[in-house]
């Protein structure tokens, strides 16, 4: 047990007057709101969230069992901070930035309350999340006598694939470099000295603290202009999120939120991934830890873990720290943005954070809003989403970076009308609505096309035109329309039966099925298909959509629809998602041509029919969910099939 602090530092400790769960009230203390306090004999980490008539209300980030009325409460004079600097990459941190892997070695497999007796950490004086002993090679980029301002790059440190720029502090006024030397330094040792305008001397260190609730300032915000390329067809082609934008991913349990977040962590085209497991499963963190060190970063070829920061506050860890974990994640993401890097912040799940707000609000006896959530739920979420974005960082030389937020939401009962989903929808620019029906039909990713949307389409069009395919908007619209028409036709089929609809409607059903099964479906664990470059995606989309013209031409040429659908070319199309290799684009282009030419080729015959009966299956793919329900699997030409609804 740690000794109480020297009396000079905390002259009059306050006293606990009331305690329930994570909420403690203390009297005899004059802290400020947001100040970190240490509660009880075990010096539990807490934060003042309200002050009234000499009583401070504290949310405690650690387990409070055993706390007594009359226990001491000590103010630290500091807000909750994150320590930012080299050594963050590859770490696993809890919501208070404690290094979980190191704790597992030193403290055993379970987490104890009481901060491992580290007083300096508790006071925020020293970094703990980043290894304080490791030495880094610091290369100065400025010279003694140089004038520097806030955010200016003073020097740099290489960590794996990432170059950390050591920046002049954002709250620094104009200053002059007195000293800056090349050094093998730990994050704590000074590598230089600045003299501020008021004559104050400020040492330069590789790591510095930042209050997690305060957005890091930027020089200026930039509009979005390119997508976050994810490798998932349904996202990149239909519902892209812009780099610097925000996507909301709501879905009932087991619909695939975590698989989407983890796919993005693996495949998305960014420099740094910050993954926040907030109130979710310990085994999911263990899985990332088990697989990421051996998975290659698709961009650099290095280990995936080397571009990743994992923040884990699992569901059984103290509730109040869930909020700290998402704020910590955002602050770390902003830190890398300010380095001029592109960052993805993947938060799974923001509902658990909102529930923590509700639980704490309940203990404060606040007047609740909808479903017991505090009235400030929406404004808290908004403040968080607002921190995502593209920006020019403060200081010289100019650096542009971005934070793209992908926030999972876990609506109770899968019902999107609940407050957290609704509040999030107003904040994100893309909605990836996970659909329980699709998940049950093992259509993965189960992103429903009826409810999902992207508000970034117009802003991204130039990028797609220049980098992927100028026809992308048209192709996207064609795919969306096909799916919309499928729904309408199916409504008619439900009324009059499948036989009564015209041939042209049957073509719609057939093409829509190809869009769903040959294009939208993508198995997260398939070695080839898990993520595809946009050029391959668009080539496949072209080939799939060509079936519309092809089938109509075949009908015009006198073939029956059944015969046209039995063409081996379509069977090939159904498997084209598994194609890889150098010539894949050429092969897809050739396939597109042959699909469009169905009218001319018109392969019929029993053998061809058997091949086409394979529908849009993907043989050889492994992993769960390759199974499909009937209807989507109905063989051959039978348009009597119930397509899973695109939305509830």
């Amino acid at each position, binding site marked *: 047990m740690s000794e109480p602090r020297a009396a000079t530092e905390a002259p009059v400790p306050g006293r606990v007057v009331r305690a329930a769960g994570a909420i403690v009230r203390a009297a005899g203390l004059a802290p400020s709101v947001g100040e970190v306090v240490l509660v009880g004999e075990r010096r539990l980490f807490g934060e003042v969230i309200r002050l009234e008539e000499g009583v401070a209300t504290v949310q405690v980030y650690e387990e409070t069992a055993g706390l007594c009325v*009359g226990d001491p409460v000590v103010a630290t004079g500091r807000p909750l901070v994150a320590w930012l600097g080299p050594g963050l990459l590859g770490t696993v941190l809890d919501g208070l930035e404690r290094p979980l892997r190191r704790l*597992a070695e030193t403290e055993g497999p379970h987490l104890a309350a009481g901060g491992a007796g580290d007083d300096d950490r508790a006071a925020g004086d020293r970094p703990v999340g980043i290894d304080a002993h490791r030495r880094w090679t610091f290369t100065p980029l400025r010279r003694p006598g140089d004038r520097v301002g806030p955010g200016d790059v003073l020097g740099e440190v290489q960590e794996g694939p990432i170059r950390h720029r050591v920046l002049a502090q954002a709250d620094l006024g104009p200053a002059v470099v007195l000293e800056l030397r090349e050094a093998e330094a730990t994050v704590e040792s000074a590598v230089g000295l600045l003299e501020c305008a008021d004559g104050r001397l400020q040492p330069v260190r590789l790591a510095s603290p930042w209050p997690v609730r305060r957005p890091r300032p930027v020089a200026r915000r930039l509009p979005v202009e390119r997508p976050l390329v994810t490798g998932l067809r349904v996202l990149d082609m239909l519902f892209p999120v812009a780099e610097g934008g925000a996507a909301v991913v709501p879905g009932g*349990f087991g619909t695939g939120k975590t698989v989407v977040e983890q796919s993005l962590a693996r495949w998305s085209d960014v420099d740094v991934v910050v993954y926040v497991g907030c109130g979710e499963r310990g085994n999911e*963190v263990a899985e990332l830890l088990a697989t990421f060190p051996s998975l290659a970063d698709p961009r650099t070829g290095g280990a995936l873990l080397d571009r990743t920061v994992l923040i884990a506050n699992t569901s*059984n860890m103290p509730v109040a720290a869930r909020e700290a974990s998402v704020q910590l994640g955002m602050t770390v993401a902003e830190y890398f943005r300010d380095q001029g890097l592109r960052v993805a912040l993947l938060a799974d799940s923001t509902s658990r954070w909102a529930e923590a707000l509700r639980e704490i609000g309940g203990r404060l006896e606040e007047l609740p809003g909808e479903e017991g959530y505090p009235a400030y739920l929406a404004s808290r979420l908004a403040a968080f989403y607002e921190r995502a974005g593209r920006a020019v960082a403060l200081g010289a030389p100019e650096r542009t970076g971005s934070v793209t937020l992908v926030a999972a939401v876990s609506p109770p009962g899968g019902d999107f009308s609940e407050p957290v989903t609704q509040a999030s929808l107003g904040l994100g620019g893309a909605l990836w609505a996970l659909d329980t029906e699709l998940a049950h039909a093992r259509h993965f990713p189960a992103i429903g096309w009826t409810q999902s949307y992207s508000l970034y389409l117009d802003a991204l069009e130039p990028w797609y035109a220049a980098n992927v395919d100028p026809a992308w908007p048209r192709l996207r619209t064609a795919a969306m329309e096909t799916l919309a028409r499928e729904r309408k036709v199916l409504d008619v089929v439900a009324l009059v039966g499948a036989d009564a609809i015209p041939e042209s409607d049957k073509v719609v059903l057939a093409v829509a099925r190809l869009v769903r099964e040959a294009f939208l479906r993508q198995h997260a664990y398939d070695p080839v298909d898990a993520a595809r470059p946009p050029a391959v995606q668009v080539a496949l989309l072209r080939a799939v959509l060509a079936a519309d013209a092809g089938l109509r031409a075949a009908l015009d040429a006198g073939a029956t629809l059944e015969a046209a659908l039995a063409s081996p070319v379509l069977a090939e199309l159904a498997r084209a998602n598994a194609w890889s290799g150098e010539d894949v684009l050429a092969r897809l282009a050739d396939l597109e041509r042959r699909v469009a030419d169905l009218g001319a080729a018109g392969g019929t015959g029993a053998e061809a029919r058997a091949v086409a009966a394979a529908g849009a299956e993907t043989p050889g793919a492994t992993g769960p969910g390759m199974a499909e329900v009937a209807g989507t699997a109905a063989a051959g030409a039978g348009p009597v099939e119930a397509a899973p609804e695109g939305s509830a």
Partner: protein
Amino acid sequence: MRLSSVRQLGVDRIAGPIVVLRRVAGMGLDEEVLVVGPGETRHGRVLELSGDLAVVQVYEGTFGLEVGSTGIEPTGEPFRLGVSDAMLGRVFDGRGRPVDDGPAIVADRVLDVGGAPMNPAARDHPVNFIETGVSAIDLLASLVRGQKLPIFTGPGLPASTLAARIAIGARLPGDERFVTIFAAMGVTRREADEFRDAFSSSASVERIAVFLNLADDPVIERLLVPRCALTLGEHLAFGLGLDVLVVLTDVLAYGEALRELSTAREEIPGRRGYPGYLYTDLATLFERAGRLRGRPGSLTVLPVVSMPDDDITHPVPDLTGYITEGQIVLSRDLHGRGIDPPIDVLPCLSRVMNAGIGAGRTRAEHRLVADQLYASYARGCELRRLVTVIGEAALSPVEQRLLAFADEFETRFVGQGRARRTLDETFEAAWAVLRRLPRSELRRLPDDVLDRAYPEPR
């Protein structure tokens, strides 16, 4: 231990399972206290401290307590349970006291039943297949060591029987067996007896410890039962290196107890009157499942969850689904048709299955066979619905065989009856029904697999 005979008299308020009393100096949050009424001592836990008062939940309920004559005594500690492997083969009440004729338990260790959260970085990712002997689970929703996999059930469905079969049947490669801890929360004596009888008849009774809080036992004690069971489970698994299965039944009754307590505390309710922290509370139970890196032993948790009205969106099954790693779902329809166990395969899922199956663990073709069974069965079910509209005559010959396949799959493959099947037998049963379909229908299976199991007739 801070033994104390300090007793403070004076009750401020009694409300449902809650008493508000004058606190004793030094009394801590979550501490176990004795609530001493006229001629009787009960047990409670401190939920809240405020000035001179303590809010205490009383496990035995407050019925019969009086405002004037009730007092409180601190114990100085949270509720702790003495644990030992000698507890296997024994029966305990909801607070962990023996209720059979056996000797007193000499504890190896005395542990806070609240447990401490596992550091996620200390976890080992679950990868070892458990052969339960139940075909539908082993092949299609495989259980993995350290997983938490609930059984979703409805009133009258044989979930406890299935849980008992899994517990008795569970084997690791090399025929390693499991020990089981059965925590009954608000179930009937009949169900609890059934569960235990299953163990006696299979001569496994020395491999099970039972904690009983039956339907007529104090409601608030239900909050303690799973914690006692999991605490013993952690000791056996991580202290002694055993493979442990904890069956928690019925989680709905647990949730209702929590709701009762929350209502008495006048907390702001979340959905359907359940407290907003139901998710967190359940997670602190289920997340105790797992494996630790560098240690033998595992804790696998099988919660049994009733769905009122067979409604899977009810908060208790819904939040359970949000915490656990998949689900086994029982079907009233299959049960009605005499299929035993009545597992509805389509909504079943094991999320950690992939890591536990395949070459070197089960069989290389495990995933493919599972996908083929799932796809063909799903298609058969769809055709069944269709037939009610268009009649069977309208189906093609292949479709008629798919229809027959779906029936056989239910009766022969899922409905295996009482017998335990090894994984080999499960695969044989799978092939026996798959061979009912034309080989050309089995499109998910590559030729080399088919050539071995379904040779073309020559």
